[in-house]
């Protein structure tokens, strides 16, 4: 328990006998354009254009800027004007949302230098530039399961349940290109049988496609959880010793730079304490073909702007210094931005997916 941060903050407040009062500062600036975009190599992309607003403006209308001109330049050459449109989509939580933005037809390639220039009659101009990173191959993955437990039981509701609960270590081998400063993010997802990789969830995946009791059914649970950020120190490299002792950790942050591994082959260590794979059905299947278990490990090369944005998020929300800022003992932590107006982030990624097939391990001990 990182009690120190609470002790420290409490001590500060006791010491200072302070109080807070509301006030209205002189507003010196005007709203400007905010430009956000995440560009994936090989895919058209969308630029979200909004305008900045006062922190206290709770009655603000939609801040989307729909009537701006957004120009795309690639490697210094004008490519196209992005067109505004609104698209419905399903978000992370399965909710239907409307995506509003300026869409490209151009599909950026790795190492493209993308420059976006937006202009608007009220909110002025905004520009941003990002280089699409080059993906880095995952060369191999070694893995083991130090602890495992067979699941084999029957209930009237679930039927016959076969599977395993196990811990898992993976060593994801890749070689960092020596030339530049590179930034990475690693992701994972469990690919369930009768399913396909949809990039929706790679942490707690479970899918219970329950059919009626009368019909044969097969339900699958497959998840990877209990990821330990501290097993590989590279995930905590951005946390300095002071923050470390203050109890700050990198929980949930799986990004890193190549500062300590530049130009080297590196076995990135991923450790999960709780991996569960189970198939339940209303017949006692011993068919090995149904135990198909694959994990996709994605090594994303990310732009510097992406990395910096994430670390800003960490500093603001999870660091001790962010706590001091919250109580007013440091300056406000203002956000990282690579847009000329200091509002918005234009980032880019290029990914490499590695499919790790652990079906044989799952079958071993289940198939009689």
């Amino acid at each position: 328990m990182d009690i120190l941060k609470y002790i420290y903050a409490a001590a500060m407040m006791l010491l200072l006998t302070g109080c807070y009062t509301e006030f209205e500062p002189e507003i010196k600036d005007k709203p400007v354009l905010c430009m956000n975009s995440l560009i994936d190599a090989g895919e058209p992309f969308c630029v979200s254009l909004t305008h900045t607003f006062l922190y206290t403006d709770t009655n603000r209308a939609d801040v989307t800027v729909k009537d701006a001109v957004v120009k795309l330049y690639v490697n210094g050459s004008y490519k196209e004007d992005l067109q505004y449109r609104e698209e419905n989509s399903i978000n992370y939580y399965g909710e239907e949302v409307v995506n509003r933005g300026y869409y490209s037809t151009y599909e950026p390639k790795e190492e493209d230098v993308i420059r976006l220039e937006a202009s608007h009659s009220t909110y002025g101009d905004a520009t941003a530039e990002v280089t699409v990173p080059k993906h880095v191959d995952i060369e191999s993955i070694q893995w083991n399961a130090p602890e495992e437990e067979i699941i084999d039981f029957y209930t009237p509701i679930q039927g016959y349940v076969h599977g395993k609960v196990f811990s898992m270590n993976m060593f994801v081998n890749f070689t960092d290109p020596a030339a530049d400063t590179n930034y990475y993010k690693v992701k994972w997802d469990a690919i369930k049988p009768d399913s396909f990789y949809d990039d929706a969830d790679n942490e707690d995946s479970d899918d219970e496609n329950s059919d009626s009791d009368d019909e044969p059914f097969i339900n699958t649970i497959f998840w990877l959880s209990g990821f330990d950020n501290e097993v590989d120190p590279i995930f905590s490299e951005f946390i300095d010793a002071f923050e470390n002792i203050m109890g700050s950790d990198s929980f949930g942050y799986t990004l890193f730079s190549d500062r300590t591994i530049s130009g080297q082959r590196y076995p990135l260590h991923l450790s999960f304490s709780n991996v569960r794979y189970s198939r339940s059905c209303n017949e006692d299947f011993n068919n090995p073909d149904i135990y198909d278990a694959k994990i996709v490990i994605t090594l994303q090369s990310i732009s510097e702007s992406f990395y910096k944005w994430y670390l800003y998020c960490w500093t603001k929300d999870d660091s001790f210094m962010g706590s001091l800022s919250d109580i007013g003992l440091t300056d406000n932590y203002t956000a990282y931005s690579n847009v000329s107006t200091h509002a918005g982030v234009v980032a880019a990624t290029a990914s490499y997916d590695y499919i790790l097939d652990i079906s044989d391990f799952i079958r071993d001990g289940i198939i009689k």
Partner: protein
Amino acid sequence: MAVQAQNVTVNIKNQRAESAFATIMQQTGKNFVYSADLLKGLKVSVTANNEPLKSVLNRMFANTPVTYKIKGKNVVLMARPVEKVAETKTIKSYSISGFVREEGTQEAIVGAVVKDKYTGYSTFTNANGFYSLTLPQGKAFLEVEFSGYDPYITGDFPLTANKQIDIHLTESKLLDEVVVIESRNRRIAMQSADMGAFNLSQDEIKKTPVIFGEPDVVKSLQLQPGVSAGIEGFAGMYVHGGNADENLYMLDNIPLYQVNHFAGLFSAFNVDALRNVDFYKSSFPAKYDGRLSSFMDVHTKDGSLESHHGSAKLGLTSGAFNINGPISKGRTSYSLALRRSWYDILTIPTFAIINATVADDDKFSLGYAFMDINAKINHRFNDRSSGYVMFYYGDDYLRGSSEDGTTMEYWYEKDKTNLHWGNVVASAGWKYIFSPKIYGEVTGAFSRYYSSMKTDMYEEIISDNVVTNTARDIKQIKNNINDVILRADFDWRPTTAHRVNFGIGYTRHNFLPSKLYKSTQVDNYFSEYSDDALTYNANEANAYIGDDWNINAKLRANIGLHYSMFEIDSKRNSGLSPRFSLRYAPIPTLALKAGYSRAYQYVHQLFSSNISLPTDQWVPITKDFKPQNSDKVSLGAYYTLNNEYTFSVEGYYKWMRNLVDYRDEYYLYPGKVWDSRLTTGKGTSKGIDFKVSKELGAFTGHLAYSLLWADRTFAEKNGGVTYPARFDNRHKINVVLNYRINDKWEINAAWTGMSGNRFTFSTYSWSDPEFTFNGDNSYYYFTEDTNMYQGINNYRLPFYHRLDLGFTRYNKHGYWNFSLYNAYCNMNTIAYRQGWNEKQGRPIYQKLHLLPIIPSVSYTWIF
């Protein structure tokens, strides 16, 4: 009107001349007319029984520098004409040297003026009370004065060889307004070539009303023009737009790194241990280098050689005890001063009550304490040689612990944290009069700065009252500096017109900027990790020479050169710092000055917040950085009115280069590579300091006004655009008043008003890019809006003002001090933030106010 007698009856023995005048005036009706300067220190003896006035006056002024004329009803006193020594082509010169010390305690008196009446040549004592005057053969007559002490005269004595005359001044029992002598700071202002120099005695520091009634040298200096306090209540010091780490704090010639207690609420200097403090903020003497903004040289007491003295102080927040006296009478003395805060003791019952009211399974404690020890032994080997050993220990700790699960059967947890930081200095020095013209001091010291933070988390799993599993996680971070210091400083007075200071120094630094240790134990499994933090060894050497040259009565120059070398990471940096200041006095009451100083700085402190925390690491420049340096030019005018008020105006312009600061996004880089977070830039500051002061008499004080502009320009901060410095306090006013009502009561008041500090504040927000929704395994997500970057230090906090009052009641055995910090309870704003109105459920902008009125009381018992 009664006819006045012309015969006089008087019986006076070794008393002030003024005492005799009163008797004579009463009997004769004659007035005595004289200038106050004429009678300084003059004591007379005369016995007469109804004798003529002339006869009595002749006897009274025989063998004194005073003569008289009776003109009507007035007796006009005047200086006796100097008997001219016949000039020859080969007039020999001889030196008179020695020490000026306090009668009884034998403590050195710094800055006392020693003047020969016949030639008018004068000098003043150095930090060890040493003086040297070279005078022509013949006769001499020394007058010695220092404010707060009775003047001393030697009378005529033949000068036919070099002489050592040690002088002992007696503390004045009379109020200073009767004995009009020049104060130290007026002498600095009017006679020396130094600019922005100031001297504080222990008494003056104690007169400054401060928070919790804890006398503080830094807070006394904060009341000077050109010195900003930083954050409310804290002992920060920002001189002429510089940063807090640009001030060199020296304790008996040894630099200290950790100069604060209690997050900066108090400075680390126990005033009871101090003798006096020299402070320089504009033109720097050649001796000082290593910081860009100011130099504070603290001199501690040697201890009385005659008798034991001391005091014990009991305050609301701390206690102090100091004692000094002879170990061997006349030869060896000691001085010991201890101070410790009570906060941890006060919190014990508080937490006991809190813990008694909560469930057994939830215990919590928190303790903070600071302490410091100053110890010194001084020994006189002979009249020319003395030595000392000094020890300083300043220490702070903050400890907390919590316990959970004591009543639960299955789980128990105990966490402990410990923050510990401070400074240890051990030094030894030898002082020697090599010749009547050369005085030297050799010092060797070890200085250690340490800062450590440790957490210890322990867990047990209990089943059937048996501990089945245990786990323990320990983390510790350290930041240390170990310095071994050798230095030699000399004071050479080749002629009366020249006072040459020169010296050399060497420091072996060992820096540990940041080191992390972690250990984990789970049942029988144990692992530990210690990062490969770099330690840096550095060699720092310096040499200096400076001449305080009294060219003539009107012109005085202080010319110096300081060379410094700093070697680290196989890279050698060096800097040559010329120093120059000039005083021109067209009339005795007016001095015009000009000065130029360059300074280099090789170590700096990285601040992580607006207050002083042990996390503020001291780090050296490394091979990727150049030493910080500054150039400063100053102009000033000083005027004294009626020997009572001193007016000064000083203007300056300072250029600062290679300043070091965190990058805007300093969180971007791995912790191990600490200096990769840093970037360099430059800054300027300019301003004018005005001050009028009255330092003598029952009523003293000063009124000061500062006008300041300070900015910074870093290519990698604020988009490369110049921005105002945090403590760019445009206007600052200080009013300090001390009134000694009578022997029992004294009132002190200090009012500060200044433009608020600059602050980085975001009023606008922008929509989060929501990258985390894009197929991510992270556990967090954003729905909040994002603070917009609107420039560094883009807002100025409201005008700051505060009145502090102090009341001192003296009695036979000591004194009570009652103080009111922030007497009219103006809770000043120290920060802005984006907050939330819980009741109305809406975002709001908020001001953070600190420190309401804080009364305190203490009693000091003097023995």
